[in-house]
């Protein structure tokens, strides 16, 4: 009998503990993490691989979105790295729906040691809650690119795995066959060229493949509205949050309107695939390689994937987005996903993680072997980009002004446009053009209204 009573008391107390633990976990996710624990860490740029912390012991867990490389390339990397640091062990975990899953997992604090800094962190003031600072942005910028992507109050919280240029993947042979000798420089030239491709091939080649059904691919269009469409590095983070009706048409056909106009008109004139709802992302790469697709709107990371999807890698080229601002063409160059290190890991794990991340960026050859732009400043551009981007000015987005770090992110999500992260608004353009249900100006008016409402909520309009 006493045993039973003891059990019931035990269970009851277990329940109470579980309850309080749950509510405590829920509540503390809002508070900021401990800042003192990062004080005695070495600076990322002054670490010497292979000589510093030679005997450090750690078991690291690495969360990545590159599910295809977890059992191949990354395993190799760990083996190579362990030649330098035999006592550091790294376990990779690939996550298919990375952003969605991380939005839940990151709040638990013990998700692992290294992850790719998720794009849903729109407020940079949240960075210190989750990641350790890798050093002062100004010092890191001497050696590395894209250091201000995840900068908050002068410190950098992530280091890019590689860089990307925003342009379009195209099949050179398809363009040549259609008699296009110079690459288009304005939206209307581009649309004429797409029509040429369609006419010349008798409709057999898809002039521009949207990859509509894959959804995430559609956000590539948002990536063009900044530097590509305006030539201004300040546009995304400084101008756009304060601009009145940013989606309205401009006389010289630049800016966001021109970008979405290209997509809308291409759809309306049936220069895209016949049935966008059933496109297939994996299948689109070999199709483009074989010359069944003319153009795809994707970042430069996609080049090597299309090249290796078949035997015609020499046919694949990369061109700037067809917008010219005052006679010049521009392209955004930005970091891809950044490596971030968990602020709640133990000190040894943090140092070990820094060593591995540094090795990945500098020694692994990840960027070079995939035809990507390296994060390290002194590494050369991949050859494919050297030729077609000769006359194009490559620029990085300037970070928001001090005190306004959260403004763009807040307006962006509150307006539910969620540029660069939610595909639904871009999908709406294709839907409207396909069914001729709504004019582009109507959609842009709607976006302007949503944007203005969010701007007013956060006091961004003066």
């Amino acid at each position, binding site marked *: 009998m006493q045993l*039973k009573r003891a059990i019931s008391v035990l*269970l009851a107390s277990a329940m109470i503990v579980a309850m309080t633990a749950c509510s405590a976990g829920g509540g503390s996710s809002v508070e900021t993490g401990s800042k003192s624990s990062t004080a005695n860490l070495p600076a990322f740029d002054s670490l010497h691989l292979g000589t510093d912390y030679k005997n450090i012991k750690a078991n690291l867990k690495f969360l990545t979105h590159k599910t295809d490389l977890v059992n191949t390339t990354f395993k190799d990397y760990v083996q190579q790295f362990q030649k330098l640091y035999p006592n550091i062990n790294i376990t990779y975990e690939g996550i298919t729906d990375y952003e969605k899953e991380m939005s839940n997992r990151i709040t638990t604090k013990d998700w692992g040691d290294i992850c790719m800094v998720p794009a849903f962190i729109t407020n940079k003031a949240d960075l210190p809650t989750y990641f350790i600072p890798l050093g002062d942005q100004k010092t890191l910028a001497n050696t590395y690119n894209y250091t201000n992507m995840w900068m908050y109050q002068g410190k950098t919280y992530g280091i890019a795995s590689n860089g990307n240029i925003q342009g379009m993947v195209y099949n050179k042979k398809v363009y040549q066959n259609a008699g296009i000798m110079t690459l288009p420089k304005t939206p209307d030239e581009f649309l004429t060229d797409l029509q040429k491709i369609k006419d010349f091939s008798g409709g057999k080649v898809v002039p521009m493949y949207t990859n509509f059904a894959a959804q995430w691919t559609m956000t590539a269009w948002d990536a063009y509205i900044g530097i590509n469409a305006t030539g201004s590095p300040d546009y995304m983070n400084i101008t756009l949050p304060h601009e009145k009706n940013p989606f309205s048409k401009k006389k010289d056909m630049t800016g966001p309107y021109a970008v979405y106009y290209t997509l809308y008109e291409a759809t309306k004139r049936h220069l895209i695939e016949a049935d966008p709802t059933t496109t297939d992302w994996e299948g689109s790469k070999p199709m483009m390689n074989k010359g069944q697709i003319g153009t795809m709107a994707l970042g430069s990371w996609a080049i090597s994937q299309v090249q290796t999807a078949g035997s015609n890698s020499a046919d694949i080229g990369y061109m700037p987005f067809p917008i010219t601002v005052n006679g010049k063409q521009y392209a955004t160059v930005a970091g891809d996903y950044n490596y971030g290190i968990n602020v709640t890991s133990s000190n040894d794990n943090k140092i070990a993680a820094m060593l591995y991340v540094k090795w990945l960026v500098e020694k692994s050859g990840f960027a070079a072997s995939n035809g990507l732009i390296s994060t390290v400043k002194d590494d050369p551009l991949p050859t494919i980009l050297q030729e077609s981007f000769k006359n194009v000015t490559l620029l990085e987005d300037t970070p928001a002004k001090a005190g306004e770090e959260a403004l763009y992110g807040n307006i962006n999500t509150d307006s539910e446009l969620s540029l660069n992260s939610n595909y*639904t608004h871009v999908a709406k353009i294709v839907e409207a053009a396909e069914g001729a249900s709504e004019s582009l100006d109507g959609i842009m008016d709607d976006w302007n209204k949503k944007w203005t409402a969010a701007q007013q909520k956060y006091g961004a309009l003066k």
Partner: protein
Amino acid sequence: MKKANRTDGRQNALPFWQWARGLRGQQMLVTITFLLVPLLLFFIFTCLPFLKMVQFSFFDMRYIGSRTFVGLDNYKSVFTRSDILSSLKLALYYLGASVIQLGLALLFASVLSFKTRLGSFFKGTLFFPYLVCGIAMGFIFKFFFTHGFVLDTVLTAIGVPHGILPMWLLNTNINNFSLAGSSIWRYTGQNMVLFIGAIMSVDPNLYEAAEIDGANGVNKFFHVILPSIKTIVVLNIILSVSGSISAFEPPYVITGGSFGTATYFVLMDQIAHLDQKVGLASAMAIVLLGIIIVVTVIQRLVFRLFLDEDEKGMTFRERRRSTRRIAVTASSKGGK
């Protein structure tokens, strides 16, 4: 003094121990001990998340970062935003589909409950789609409806000219019908199995009696089978209605909610995960729960009023009418 106190204490404790040793006490203790674990699990994994969701619905919040209390603002926007309201209308397509689905299921069930050639084969074939998981079903139908794939091939094979075939998922006039059609395929078998189970439990003597009275198959269906399986029919209707309001898998997997196919659930998913408006999405979930509860209560009431028979074979309405009649005759008698 001390000694007296101790005996007092023992005497006070005695009734509890006596109760605990007795039959009732033992029963209670055993029940509580066995229930503790499931209740604990139920509380942690069902009640707690639900209460949290209710709490979230009053906040303007994302997954990370600070939260602001906004009172009923989220609920207000659920009822005022045109995109949310129009997504609820899509439930009508699935509701229409569930009528066809229940009709088909009832038809197949009443045929297959009796000895039929290849009966088990047909039962198996009809039930099979329900065993396919929703995601796999989505992919099957994605290819089924793709332009120039399965459906188009079949239609051209039977002589439909290729030129007039529509884009099944693109054309906004028909794409919701396509999606609702796929859910008919999936759930007919499940409804049918429930119906067959109910029909099997009908007393076979009733058929014999009906036959002696000269009833044909149709008579038997309407006067013997249908009244006997009423409860299951109502259950299936309730399940289908709440299922159509919360339709999610076909639009999510097949079209991703594009081209006007985003049902309430798909929209909720987009608002919660892509726009990170956790508060608004929680409010949407609670409103949906409210809608389903209201619809179910209405259905139960209608059932009680018009269909539910007591042991005399009278419905609630008939009973009221007859009591009134008795009252009227009684009062008229009294007047005499």
